[in-house]
C-alpha cells in the first residue's frame, strides 16, 4: 500500500512536471504569434510576417508534445487515483470535461487553420484562427487551474455518502485560489516563453556566419520579447505576492511549511523570514537558519508584528512531513530567487537596448551578454516547475485540502511492478521526447527563417 502510493505520486509528479512545460510554451508562443500577425496586418511590414512563420514552426512542436504528454495526465486520474475520481468526479471531472469540450476542441480546430490555412482561407479568418488558438489555450489553462485550485481551497461543495455534491458552482469554480493562481500561471507561461524566444535568438546571434537579414530577424525577436516582458514581469511580482497572502490565509499549514516557520510568534513580536533553513530531526524547529527579523510578519500581514502560525500548532497527520516541508520550502525559495534573477537579466537587456548595443553593427561585440541569455533559456520554466512543486507537495497530506487525504485517493489493486514499469517507460519516453524537442528546435533555428516564403 505504502509503496504503490509513493509510486503513484512519483508517476503523477513525473508526468505533470514534463507535461506542463509544453502547454506553458504553447500559451506564450500563441500570444507572440498573435501579436506578430496583428502587427503584420496593421503595418504591412513583412518582417512581422517572417517572425510569425518562423516561430510557428516551434509552436507546432510544443503543441504536439503538449497533446501527447497530456493523455497520460488525463488517464491517470482514473488509472491511479480511482478513489479520488469517484469521490470528486462530479465536480473535478465536470471541469475537466469543460476543458476538453469547450477549450481544447477549439484550439485543435483553429490550429489546423493557423498551420495549413494560408492559401485556403482569407487573412481575416486566419487572424481569427490565430487569436482563437491563443484564447483557447489560455481558456484550457483556466479550467485546469480552476480544477487544481479547487483541490487547494475547496469551496461550494459538501461531501455526502462519500461523494462530492456541489452547492454553488460559482464558488467552487472561482474558489479563493483560482483567479490569483490563473493570473500567476498565465504570466509565468508568457514570461517563460519570452525567455525561450530571447534565449534562442541570442543563441542564433552568437553564430559566426550569418547574413544581415538573419541578424536583423533574431535581433527583432529578441527586442520584441524584451518589450513584452517589460509589461509582464512587474505584474508578475505583484501577483506572486498575492499568492503568498492567499496561501497564508486559506492553507496556513502549507504556508508554514513553505517558510519552515515552526513557532507562532508571540504577541508584540514579529515572525522572521529565513533565507536558508534546515529543520531538526524531530521536525519541531530549525537546526540552522539565517533570517531577517519581522520580515515574514510584514510580507504576510503587512504589519511588523502580525501573527503567523507555525508548524508546531498543527497535528502531525494534518501537515506536510519533514521531507515534504523541506521540498516545499526550497522549491519556493528557488522560484523566488530565479524570479529576481530574471528581472535582473531583463533590466540588463533593457540597458543594452537603450545604449544602442542591440544593433546589427555592434551585437557581435557582446558575446558574454548573449551567452548569458542562452543560459537563461530554462530559467522561467524552472521557476514554474518549482512553484508547482511547492503548491502540490505543500498541500500534503491532502489530495483535496481538508476533504480527502492523498492516502485515501488511490485505485484498488495497483501492483508495484506494473507501476515501476510504467514509470520507467514514461520517464524514458519523456526524456527521449525532450532531447528530440531540443534537437529539432536547434535544427529549425540553424536553418533560420525562410525569407522567400510567399505571402
Amino acid at each position, binding site marked *: 500500500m505504502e509503496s504503490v502510493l509513493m509510486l503513484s505520486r512519483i508517476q503523477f509528479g513525473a508526468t505533470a512536471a514534463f507535461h506542463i512545460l509544453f502547454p506553458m510554451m504553447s500559451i506564450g508562443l500563441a500570444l507572440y504569434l498573435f501579436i506578430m500577425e496583428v502587427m503584420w496586418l496593421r503595418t504591412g511590414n513583412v518582417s512581422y510576417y517572417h517572425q510569425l512563420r518562423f516561430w510557428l514552426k516551434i509552436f507546432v512542436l510544443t503543441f*504536439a508534445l503538449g497533446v*501527447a504528454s497530456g493523455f497520460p495526465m488525463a488517464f491517470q486520474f482514473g488509472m491511479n487515483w480511482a478513489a479520488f475520481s469517484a469521490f470528486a*468526479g462530479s465536480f473535478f471531472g*465536470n471541469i475537466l470535461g469543460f476543458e*476538453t469540450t*469547450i477549450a481544447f476542441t477549439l484550439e*485543435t480546430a483553429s490550429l489546423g487553420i493557423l*498551420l*495549413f490555412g494560408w492559401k485556403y482561407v482569407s487573412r481575416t479568418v486566419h487572424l481569427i484562427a490565430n487569436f482563437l488558438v491563443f484564447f483557447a489555450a489560455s481558456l484550457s489553462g483556466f479550467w485546469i487551474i480552476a480544477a487544481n485550485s479547487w483541490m487547494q481551497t475547496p469551496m461550494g461543495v459538501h461531501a455526502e455518502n462519500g461523494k462530492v455534491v456541489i452547492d454553488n458552482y460559482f464558488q467552487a469554480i472561482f474558489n479563493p485560489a483560482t483567479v490569483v493562481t490563473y493570473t500567476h500561471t498565465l504570466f509565468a507561461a508568457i514570461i517563460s516563453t519570452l525567455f525561450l524566444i530571447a534565449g534562442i535568438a541570442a543563441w542564433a546571434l552568437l553564430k559566426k556566419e550569418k547574413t544581415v537579414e538573419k541578424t536583423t530577424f533574431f535581433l527583432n525577436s529578441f527586442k520584441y520579447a524584451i518589450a513584452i516582458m517589460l509589461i509582464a514581469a512587474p505584474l508578475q511580482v505583484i501577483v506572486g505576492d498575492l499568492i503568498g497572502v492567499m496561501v497564508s490565509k486559506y492553507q496556513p499549514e502549507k504556508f508554514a511549511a513553505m517558510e519552515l516557520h515552526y513557532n507562532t510568534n508571540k504577541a508584540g513580536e514579529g515572525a522572521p523570514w529565513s533565507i536558508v533553513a534546515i529543520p531538526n530531526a524531530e521536525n519541531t524547529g530549525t537546526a540552522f537558519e539565517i533570517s531577517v527579523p519581522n520580515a515574514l510578519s510584514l510580507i504576510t500581514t503587512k504589519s511588523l508584528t502580525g501573527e503567523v502560525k507555525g508548524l508546531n500548532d498543527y497535528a502531525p497527520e494534518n501537515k506536510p512531513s519533514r521531507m515534504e516541508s523541506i521540498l516545499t520550502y526550497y522549491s519556493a525559495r528557488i522560484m523566488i530567487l530565479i524570479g529576481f534573477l530574471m528581472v535582473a537579466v531583463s533590466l540588463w537587456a533593457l540597458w543594452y537596448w537603450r545604449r544602442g548595443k542591440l544593433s546589427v553593427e555592434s551585437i557581435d561585440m557582446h558575446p558574454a551578454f548573449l551567452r548569458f541569455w542562452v543560459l537563461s533559456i530554462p530559467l522561467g520554466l524552472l521557476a514554474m516547475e518549482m512553484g508547482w512543486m511547492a503548491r502540490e507537495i505543500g498541500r500534503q497530506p491532502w489530495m483535496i485540502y481538508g476533504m480527502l487525504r492523498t492516502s485515501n485517493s488511490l485505485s484498488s*489493486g495497483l501492483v508495484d511492478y506494473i507501476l515501476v514499469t510504467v514509470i520507467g517507460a514514461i520517464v524514458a519516453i519523456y526524456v527521449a521526447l525532450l532531447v528530440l524537442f531540443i534537437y529539432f528546435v536547434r535544427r529549425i533555428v540553424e536553418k533560420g527563417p525562410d525569407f522567400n516564403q510567399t505571402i
Partner: protein
Amino acid sequence: MTETILPILPIVWFVIIGLELALYVLLDGSNLGIGLLSLLPQKEENRSMMLHVMGPIWNANETWLLVAAGSLFGAFPLVYSIGLNALFVPAVVIAVGLIFRAASFAFYDVSEYGAFWTRAFGVGSLLVAVGHGLLFGGLLSGITIADGHFAGGPFDFITPFSLLFTIGLLSAYVVLGYSALITKLDYALQVETFPRILGAAAVTFFALLGATLVLPRMDYIFMERWTQAPTSYILYLIAGAIAAVSIVLAYNAITKKNPEQMHFFSMLIFVLGFAGMVVGIFPYIVPPAVSIFDVASPDATLKFMLYGIGPILPIVLAYNWYLHKVFGSKFNREDAGY
C-alpha cells in the same frame, strides 16, 4: 405496483457520450487504419503521403477521445475511475501509442530521417488500435467489482473475447483506413488495395464472429439480449443490416466500382456495430453489474454540464465540419506547408 421512472439526465449523457465516442471511432478510426496500413509493405513515398493527408485533421479527430473522456469523467465518475482502474494496462498502451503518433507528426516535417517517423507513426497507430481493442473488449468481458471498487486483477482484461475483438477491430480499422484513402486521393496502390481490403474485411468478419461465439462459454451476462424480444429483433436487424452493407462493400471492392462510396459504407458498418453494442448492454455501462443510473453524478452536475457543454457541442461539430470542408477533398500538401 409502483411505476419506476427512469431518470432522464443520465440517459441524455449516455447518448451524448455515446455519440462523442462513435464520432471518435469513426474519425480517428480512419486515421488509425491509415497508420496500420503504413506498416504493410509499400513504397516509402506512399507512407509520407499518408502522413500528409492527415496533417490538418488528425489532431481535431483525436480530440473527440478527450471530449468523450472528459464528459464521461464528469457525468459518470465511477465509470471513469473503475473502468480505468481495471483497464490500467490497455490505457497505458493507448497513451504510449498516442505519444508515438503525435511525436511522429511533429518531428516528421523537420527530420531528415522521414522513414523512421513514418514507422513510428505506424507503430503508434498499432498500439492505439490494440489498446482500443483490449480496452473495449476487456470492458465488455465484464469487470469484477466489490463495494463500488474494482476488485479484480490487473490482467483480467485478457479474455478469448477481448483478443478476438481486438483482431476484429484492427482489421476493421484497416478497411476504414483504405476506404478513407481511396476517397481522399488517387491512391497509387490500386493493384494491391482491393485484395487487401477484402482480406481485412474477411478477418474482421471471422474474428468478430468468433468473438460472438465465445460469449456463451464465458457465461455472458447479456445473452438474454440476443435471445429475448424485443432486443433480439433489434439485434438481428442490425446484424442483417451489417451483413447487407458488407456484401455491397465486398461487391464494390471486387468490381472496383464506386470507390468514393466505400468510406461511407465502412463507416456505416461501424455505426451499426456500435449501435448493436449499445443495444446489447444498455443501461449497463460497466458490465456486468453497473448501470448508468448507479454511477451517474448528481442531477445538479448533469444539468450544469449540459448547460455548459450542450450549446457548445453543435458549435464544435460545425467548426470541425468546416475544417474537414476546407482540407477535406484532394488536399494539396504543396499549397499548405507551414
